[in-house]
């Protein structure tokens, strides 16, 4: 017994030492710049917060003078930083062009006195992959706090030609283009933990500042250590500019007519909830508002231009709607010509209401505040998202969440995901700091609750979420023996607190127009009156009978008109329509009848109204339709070879039959491996590269009572035709990596009788029988909670995790799936893909539209169109709606950062698409049957696969005879 204890102690010490050593060595004094790997490790440290830094430094004076550092005056640059000093660039002198998107540059600065500084960068973005430019700032030997390790410099955008009308008179957005110009930005929190620029404390004397570049090329102008901004009061402002005079002049600036914006995806949208919307139309689509939920995150801004007739004071009146955050205000900062004019403009709150509201800048007492504008020049008005008074509380809650999640995981490693409620685990003894941490957290949470209640002024929306967790914790402290049975609730409560804190940070605001006018000038009405709104509803209702929603444009003016069907939602179709109007029709002079349908091509043929092109149809469809002579073979058309080169090399395989190609891929999706870096570090695991390693890691994770997620999707009707074999489970990966294949050469039978196939099938079923992996699970939630720290999932899962799982941001990574070591020592990471495709129908020939349809198809799968489509859809649906475009160049233009992009490319290159055979739906179906026979009915794997193979072969044979292929 004692021996056991000693052993445990020894093991614990060894574990501690091995874990601590690398961490200590990193955080110790560091003369050389950090490497990318070290930075990654530093970013995992969630405890080193800005708030903690400020508390540690204490109350120190603010700097009184600014220090400007010219970018080309660096004293050292790392080897991987490719830097070119330029004497002058676009009006700025002594700059450096930093192309490598990696490395670091060191500067020396002489500080005159002990003080706090904020840091401002002037930079000129270079077209890279379109992501924000992430940089880091090291002060002397280390990063003062984690937020300074990586923060972003944004790019600026605007729509190329504003809003235009299509032939049917509906508005559409034109392309959002990046504006290249010198920008200035403070080092400021990306996550909104602080609204004001970050402060760094520098003592008198020489210091080194090291700037890191992580992902994008840019030109660095200068770095300014500024005196932290103190805005003047309105009184001082008025004293400075003199008397306020009334006037009549007023001008409306449509909010959707932006001058600049910080995000590509903030585009104009339509709101029909009031006839006072400017502009408004019952039957046509008018893009009359901007913002809303796409304008939610800290730091996003929109900018407008205004010119006034005479020098003087002006009121800035906003018509807005904030129906997003029930009971809570959202906040904006107003900047005129890039500066906050006075204190009150630094934080403007927009209260909640379900209807449209009007608001001018005002002080606490409700008195309107005016800004001073000069005549004869254009002024910019910028509204920037700020989190407001709650940002400190949010930061604190986030660090409590991290702490509690740690505790939860520690408990989990002892009890497992399914604790035996009849067993005493003595968790409070096994984890000595369990109770103290819980007590501290409960106290902190109660404090934050009081805090938030005071700021918001009511506890309506706060109380439940924090208090429920506090009660939960108190119960756990009171009777520690019940902790195991409370763990589930505990983790759920932590999860909801964390997402609540995330939501609290969102600051959505929908804007209709800005009205700039002289003091006391008349302003437009905000809302319909009661009868007006009833009349609006009645009218809209009747107009809905005469508006054709499935049809988009009126194409009677074009000689060539093709019909295109889209098998998707209205949002996607709207985007496609705008693209056609904006890019396709003007360039090729071909009209496009775009229709949203979910009808099958078969039905279209039966009714004699088949389109020329159908977009986004399931992957099993093309071959199935082609067999019956419904599709046009595009492989003989000119330019096909060029088109082929836009895609991954095997991506045409599922659409090829007997040498003819019947579709162009739209999307291509595949598996990636997701793992939790923090848990892997704790368990001293490294991310597995091969399946052998994977099984080992899986054992360690399972012996720590956590799980590993290996996907398995059950077949359903449409699924079995539409998604094909590819990414339904990991069988295809194991089989292909072993050198096996699904079909024989002429697709006349399956090839599952081979040793490789039987072996792969055995491994696949073993995962669920011997290794006891679960067949059904919710990856997203379990990965978040940490009880499934490793799993395979479609790469699009990345979007969800990065957008909706803030508490684990930076704690996880997405890498290619494990591979199999080949005889020549390389690792094969082959897997089958999935995704949709676009087809040209044989009907195009009957309509005499083959040429035009082919032009359209070529355009649609071009990098330009696909990029635009993906970005616009993302703008409408958010990151979660990111399109898994199959076009490689377009993919590069989406906002993937360097590392993710590299990983995705590695996995993508390895894809070996699986052909679609006539009758191939039977393979999916019976492979599933074979699998279930083994897993549920404990049948012998080999026997099961072979017997079901017979059934598949019979169906394929039957189909081949039917189509005269034998």
């Amino acid at each position, binding site marked *: 017994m004692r021996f056991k204890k000693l052993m445990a102690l020894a093991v614990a010490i060894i574990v501690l030492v091995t874990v601590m050593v690398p961490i200590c060595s990193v955080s110790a004094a560091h003369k050389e710049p950090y490497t990318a790997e070290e930075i990654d490790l530093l970013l995992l440290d969630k405890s080193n917060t800005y708030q903690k830094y400020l508390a540690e430094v204490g109350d120190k004076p603010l700097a009184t003078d600014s220090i400007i550092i010219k970018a080309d005056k660096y004293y050292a640059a790392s080897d991987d930083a490719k830097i070119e000093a330029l004497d002058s660039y676009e009006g700025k002198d002594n700059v450096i062009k930093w192309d490598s998107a990696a490395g670091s540059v060191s500067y020396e600065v002489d500080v005159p006195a002990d003080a706090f500084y904020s840091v401002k960068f002037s930079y000129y973005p270079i077209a890279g992959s379109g992501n924000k430019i992430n940089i880091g700032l090291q002060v002397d030997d280390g990063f003062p706090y984690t937020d300074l390790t990586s923060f972003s410099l944004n790019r600026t955008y605007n729509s190329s030609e504003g809003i235009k009308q299509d032939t049917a008179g509906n508005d559409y957005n034109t392309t959002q283009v990046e504006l290249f110009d010198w920008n200035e930005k403070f080092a400021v929190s990306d996550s909104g933990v602080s609204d004001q620029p970050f402060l760094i404390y520098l003592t008198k004397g020489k210091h080194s500042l090291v700037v890191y570049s992580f992902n994008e090329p840019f030109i660095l102008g200068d770095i300014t250590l500024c005196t932290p901004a103190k805005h003047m009061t309105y009184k001082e402002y008025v004293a400075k500019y003199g008397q306020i005079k009334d006037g009549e002049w007023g001008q409306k600036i449509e909010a959707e007519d932006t001058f600049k914006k910080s995000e590509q995806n903030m585009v104009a949208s339509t709101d029909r909830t009031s006839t006072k919307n400017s502009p408004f139309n019952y039957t046509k689509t008018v893009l009359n508002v901007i913002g809303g939920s796409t304008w939610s995150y800290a730091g996003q801004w929109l900018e407008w231009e205004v010119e006034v007739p005479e020098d003087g004071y002006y009121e800035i009146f906003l018509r807005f709607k904030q129906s997003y955050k029930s009971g809570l205000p959202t906040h904006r900062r107003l900047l005129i010509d890039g500066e906050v004019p006075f204190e009150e403009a630094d934080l403007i709150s927009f209260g909640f209401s379900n209807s449209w509201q009007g608001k001018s800048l005002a002080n606490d007492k409700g008195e309107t505040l005016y800004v001073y504008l000069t005549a004869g020049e254009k002024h910019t008005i910028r509204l920037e998202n700020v989190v407001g008074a709650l940002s400190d509380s949010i930061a604190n809650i986030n660090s409590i969440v991290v702490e509690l999640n740690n505790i939860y995981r520690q408990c989990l490693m002892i009890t497992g*995901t*399914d604790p035996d*409620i009849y067993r005493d685990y003595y968790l409070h003894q096994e984890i000595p700091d369990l109770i103290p941490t819980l007590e501290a957290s409960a106290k902190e949470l109660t404090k934050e609750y009081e805090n938030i209640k005071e700021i918001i002024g009511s506890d309506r929306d706060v109380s439940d979420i924090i208090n429920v967790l506090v009660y939960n914790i108190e119960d756990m402290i009171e009777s520690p023996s019940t902790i195991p049975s409370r763990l589930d609730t505990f983790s759920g409560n932590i999860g909801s607190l964390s997402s609540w804190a995330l939501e609290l940070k969102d600051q959505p605001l929908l804007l209709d127009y800005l009205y700039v006018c002289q003091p006391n000038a008349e302003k437009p009405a905000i809302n319909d009156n009661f009868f007006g709104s009833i009349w609006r509803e009645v009218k809209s209702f009747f107009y809905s009978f005469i508006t054709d929603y499935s049809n988009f444009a009126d194409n009677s003016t074009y000689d060539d008109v093709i019909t295109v069907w889209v098998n998707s939602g209205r949002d996607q179709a709207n985007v496609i329509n705008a693209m056609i109007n904006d890019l396709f029709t003007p360039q090729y002079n071909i009209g496009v009848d775009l229709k949203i349908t979910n009808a099958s091509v*078969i039905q279209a*043929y*039966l009714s004699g109204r088949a389109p020329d092109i159908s977009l986004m149809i399931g992957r099993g469809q093309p071959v*199935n*339709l082609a067999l*019956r*002579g*419904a599709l046009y073979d595009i492989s003989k058309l000119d330019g096909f070879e060029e088109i082929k080169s836009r895609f991954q090399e095997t991506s045409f395989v599922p659409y090829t039959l007997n040498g003819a190609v019947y579709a162009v891929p739209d999307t291509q999706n595949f598996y990636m491996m997701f793992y939790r870096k923090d848990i892997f570090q704790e368990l001293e695991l490294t991310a597995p590269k091969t399946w052998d390693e994977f099984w080992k890691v899986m054992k360690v994770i399972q012996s720590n009572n956590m799980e590993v997620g290996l996907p398995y999707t*059950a*077949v*359903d*009707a449409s*699924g*079995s*035709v539409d998604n094909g074999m590819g990414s339904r489970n990991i069988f295809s990966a194991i089989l292909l990596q072993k050198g096996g294949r699904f079909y024989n050469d002429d697709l006349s039978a399956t090839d599952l009788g081979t040793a490789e196939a039987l072996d792969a099938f055995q491994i696949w079923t073993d995962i669920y029988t011997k290794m*006891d992996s*679960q*067949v*059904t*699970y*919710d990856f997203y939630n379990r990965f978040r909670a940490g009880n499934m720290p490793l799993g395979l999932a479609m790469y699009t899962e990345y979007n969800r995790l990065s957008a909706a799982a803030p508490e684990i941001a930076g704690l996880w990574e997405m890498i290619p799936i494990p591979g199999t070591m080949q005889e020549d020592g390389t690792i094969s990471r082959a897997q089958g893909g999935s995704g949709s495709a676009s087809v040209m129908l044989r009907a195009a020939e009957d309509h005499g539209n083959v040429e035009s349809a082919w032009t359209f198809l070529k355009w649609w799968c071009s990098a330009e169109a696909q990029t635009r489509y993906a970005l616009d859809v993302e703008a409408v649906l958010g990151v979660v709606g990111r399109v898994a475009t199959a076009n490689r160049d377009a993919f590069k233009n989406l906002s993937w950062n360097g590392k993710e992009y590299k990983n995705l490319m590695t996995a993508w290159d390895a894809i070996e698409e699986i052909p679609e055979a006539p*009758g191939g*739906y039977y393979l999916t*179906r019976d492979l*599933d*049957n074979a699998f*279930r*026979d083994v897993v*549920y*009915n404990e049948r012998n794997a080999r026997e099961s696969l072979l017997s079901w193979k017979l059934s598949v072969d019979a169906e394929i044979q039957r*189909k081949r005879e*039917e189509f005269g292929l034998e």
Partner: protein
Amino acid sequence: MRKSRGNARNLVLSKEYTKKGKIPYHKDIAKHWQLYLMTAPYMIGFFIFTVLPILAAVVLSFFYYNMLETPTFIGFNNYFNLIVADTVFLKSIKNTLVFAIITGPLSYFLCLIIAWFINELPRYLRVFMTLVFYAPSLSSSVYFIWQYLFSGDSYGFINGILTKMGIIYEPIQWLSDESYTLAVVMIVQVWMSLGTSFLSFIAGFQGIDKSLYEAGDVDGIKNRYQEFFYITFPLLKPQLLFSAVMQIVSSFSVSAVSQSLCGLPSTNYSAHTIVLHITDYGNIRYEMGYACAISVILFLIMLGARKLIDILLSYVSDT
């Protein structure tokens, strides 16, 4: 006025029948063309949307037809294949019959009993409970919630509860393990089918004259059961017949529930029904001719079942 004219016509009709026996059809039409005109709108619709498709299906069942190319005549081949070569079809017939035999009568009697109970409730509570029980059929695709209840995840509702109670240790794959699929679909189907027939029973109960119960009381009815069997039940005959037909039809045409819960096809076709088999061939394999042959057989089975119910009910009500 109107009434008397109607009576006169009836009189004329019956007179002619008695005099000459059957009169030629065209003469009859010529004579009563107004009647035919008035039924025409419905009859035309019925012919186009019901009779014609049935005829088309019968005809197509002798063809090979993939919906895109011209049909080719292949005689009785589809039927031969169906009966001789298609093992899945036999399985689907078995499943469908199991459905019809278990869920049909089960939900039928469940409807009757629940309707009887609810009928005893005070008025407002009765209205409320009626709504509660009718709700599943009002919102037709609400059975999706069963997907969550029967989720195969270890945190799925039923798995979670059973694990907590210590009955199971590993999650059961309710919707894909073939030992459970059929049972699960049946449960959901019974839950779903407490709809139309339930309403018609409630209406039937409401329509019974209260004085009959009083009369029964006088005649010596001892308890509620006797009241139910001697008075209520015989008076419900029209509703019983209607519901029985509805139930049989709905149990024979079970498909959506099975498809959306267990997928198409379900594991090893364990919850495969005839209608699903039609979907499989029609929508997935595009073999319309074959699908038509299946539907013709289903049609015949249903006709037979209806006949059977007629016989059964006439037997019940005669005694």
